[in-house]
C-alpha cells in the first residue's frame, strides 16, 4: 500500500478546498440559512409539528443530508474530473499507485469536505432552532456513511463525465430531485398512499429516514433497513469503481 501517495492526493485535494474557502464553506452555509429563514421561520411557524417535532427542527437532518450528498458528489466528481480535463491525470496513471489508493485519496478528501460542511450546517442550525440529538454516535455514523457513499458516486460521475455539462447533469437531474422527494422536508406519512409506495423506491429516502432517526428517535422506515440500504449503495459504487479501474474505462486506453 502506497500510504504516502494516498496522503499526497488527500492533502492536495484538501488544499483546493481551503484555497476556495469562500466557495466551499460560505455558500452552503448561506443557502442553508436561507432554507431556515424560509421553511423554518416563515412557513414553519404556521405549520403543526411533524411526528411530534417542530417543523423548523424537523427539516434540520434533511437539510444537512441535502448538502452533504450534493457536496460529497460534486467535490468527488470535480476532484477526479479536473485532472482529466487539464491533463494532469497522466501523473496518476504513471505513478506506482493502484486504483484503491487513488480512490481512497480522492473519495476520502471529498467525504471529509462534505463532513466538514455538514457539521458547519449543524452548528448553524443551532442558531435558528432548538434541537437535541437523540443518538449522536449514530448521527455521526450516518453522516459519515452518506458522505462516503455519495463521494464514491461522485467519483464515478467524474470519471464518466466527458465535459462540464455532464459533470453537473447527475447531481442536478438525479440527486437533487431524489433528495427533495425522499422526505428531506416532510415525513412520507404526510403523502397519499400511492406516493408513499413510490418513495420506497427512492434510495435517498432510507438515508434521510435513518439520519432523522438519529436526531429524533423516530423514522419512516426501520433503522436496520436504512443501514442495509446505505451498505448496498456503497457496495454498488465500490464495485463500479473496481470495474472502471480494472477495465481502464474512460481513463486508461
Amino acid at each position: 500500500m502506497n500510504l504516502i501517495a494516498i496522503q499526497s492526493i488527500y492533502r492536495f485535494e484538501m488544499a483546493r478546498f481551503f484555497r476556495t474557502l469562500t466557495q466551499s464553506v460560505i455558500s452552503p452555509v448561506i443557502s442553508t440559512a436561507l432554507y431556515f429563514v424560509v421553511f423554518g421561520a416563515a412557513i414553519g411557524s404556521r405549520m403543526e409539528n411533524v411526528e411530534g417535532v417542530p417543523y423548523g427542527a424537523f427539516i434540520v437532518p434533511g437539510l444537512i443530508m441535502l448538502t452533504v450528498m450534493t457536496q460529497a458528489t460534486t467535490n468527488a466528481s470535480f476532484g477526479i474530473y479536473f485532472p482529466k480535463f487539464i491533463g494532469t491525470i497522466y501523473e496518476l496513471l504513471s505513478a506506482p499507485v493502484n486504483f484503491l489508493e487513488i480512490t481512497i485519496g480522492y473519495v476520502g478528501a471529498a467525504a471529509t469536505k462534505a463532513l466538514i460542511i455538514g457539521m458547519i450546517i449543524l452548528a448553524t442550525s443551532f442558531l435558528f432552532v432548538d434541537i437535541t440529538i437523540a443518538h449522536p454516535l449514530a448521527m455521526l455514523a450516518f453522516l459519515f456513511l452518506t458522505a462516503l457513499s455519495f463521494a464514491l458516486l461522485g467519483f464515478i460521475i467524474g470519471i464518466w463525465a466527458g465535459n462540464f455539462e455532464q459533470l453537473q447533469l447527475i447531481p442536478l437531474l438525479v440527486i437533487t430531485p431524489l433528495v427533495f422527494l425522499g422526505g428531506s422536508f416532510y415525513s412520507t406519512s404526510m403523502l397519499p398512499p400511492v406516493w408513499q409506495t413510490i418513495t420506497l423506491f427512492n434510495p435517498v429516502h432510507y438515508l434521510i429516514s435513518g439520519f432523522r432517526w438519529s436526531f429524533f428517535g423516530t423514522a419512516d422506515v426501520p433503522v436496520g433497513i436504512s443501514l442495509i440500504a446505505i451498505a448496498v449503495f456503497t457496495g454498488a459504487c465500490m464495485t463500479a469503481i473496481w470495474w472502471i479501474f480494472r477495465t481502464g474505462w474512460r481513463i486508461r486506453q
Partner: protein
Amino acid sequence: MSSIVSVRDLRKAYAGGFQALKGVSLEIEEGEILALLGPNGAGKTTLISTVCGITVPTSGTVSVGGFDTQTDFRKARDLIGLVPQEINLEPFETVMNTVRFTRGLFGKPRNDAYIEQILRDLSLFDKKDNKIMTLSGGMKRRVLIAKALAHEPRVLFLDEPTAGVDVELRKDMWDVVAKLKDSGVTIILTTHYIEEAEAIADRVGVIAKGEILLVQDKADLMAQMGQKQLKIEVAAPVTEIPAALSNYGLEADGTTLTYTYDTNGERTGITTLLNDLQNAGIQMVDIQTQQSSLEDIFVGLVKEDA
C-alpha cells in the same frame, strides 16, 4: 553497459482499429541518451505512454530495471520519470506544492531540500511559491521536468521537450539534459527536430507508422552524414572520364561531374581534383557542394516505408 529498458514486440491497437505500434522492440542502455525521431503520428507518444503505464499494450512486454511494467508495475514505475508533451499542470497550485505532490504520489517521503535543489538546477527556485498559472510557457515546461525528477527516477522520458520552445530555452533544455546524463540518469527523448537529436543524443532511433526503422549510434549516422558531394558543371558534355582522373571515382552525367568525399577525412582531395581537371583541359562552368543530412536519411527512411 546493460539495458535498463527493454521493449519486446510491443503492439498497440486502439479501439477504432488503428495500429499505433506494430511490434516494436527496443533495448535502451543504462546511462545513454536515446533520441526517437519520427514524424507526427509515428507512434512516439504511444510508445512512451505504454512504457510509463498510461496506455495498456495490446500485446508484448516492457521491463524497466528488470521489472515488468504490468506485473511488477510499482517497482517499474518507481524508476521512471515522465515529462509529457502537453503542458499539463494544475494552474492554481504553487510550483513547490505541485512538485511535492508528485514526489508523494511515488511514495517517497517529503524531502524539500532535494526538491529545492531540482528547482535551483532548473532555474525555477525563485518561482517556487508562484502559482503555475503565472508562469511563462518555458517555465511551465521546466516545472514538468522538476515534477518528473521529484522522485529521483533512473530513467527519464521527455516527450518532445522542446516543441514550441524558443531557441534560447531549447539550448537551456539541452544543458539540463546533459547534466542529468552526467548524474547517471538514462534519457529517452522524442523529437522531430533532427538538430536536437544531433546535439544531445548518443543513439538515434527512427520510428514511423508504428515501427522502429533504425536504431544507430549517432557517431555512425554522423559518419554517413559526413559524406559530401561536389558537383562540377562543365562546358562540354563528358562521355568518358579521362584516365588522369580515374582515381577520383567521378560520376559523369552529361555536363555534370559528381565527386563524393568525406569531410571527416584528412584530405578531401578537392584541390588536386580541380588541378587535374584543369590539366585535362576540362573547362568548369560552375561548382556546388551537397551534404546528405540526417534529415535526408530520415526522410528517405520514412518514404521507403510508405
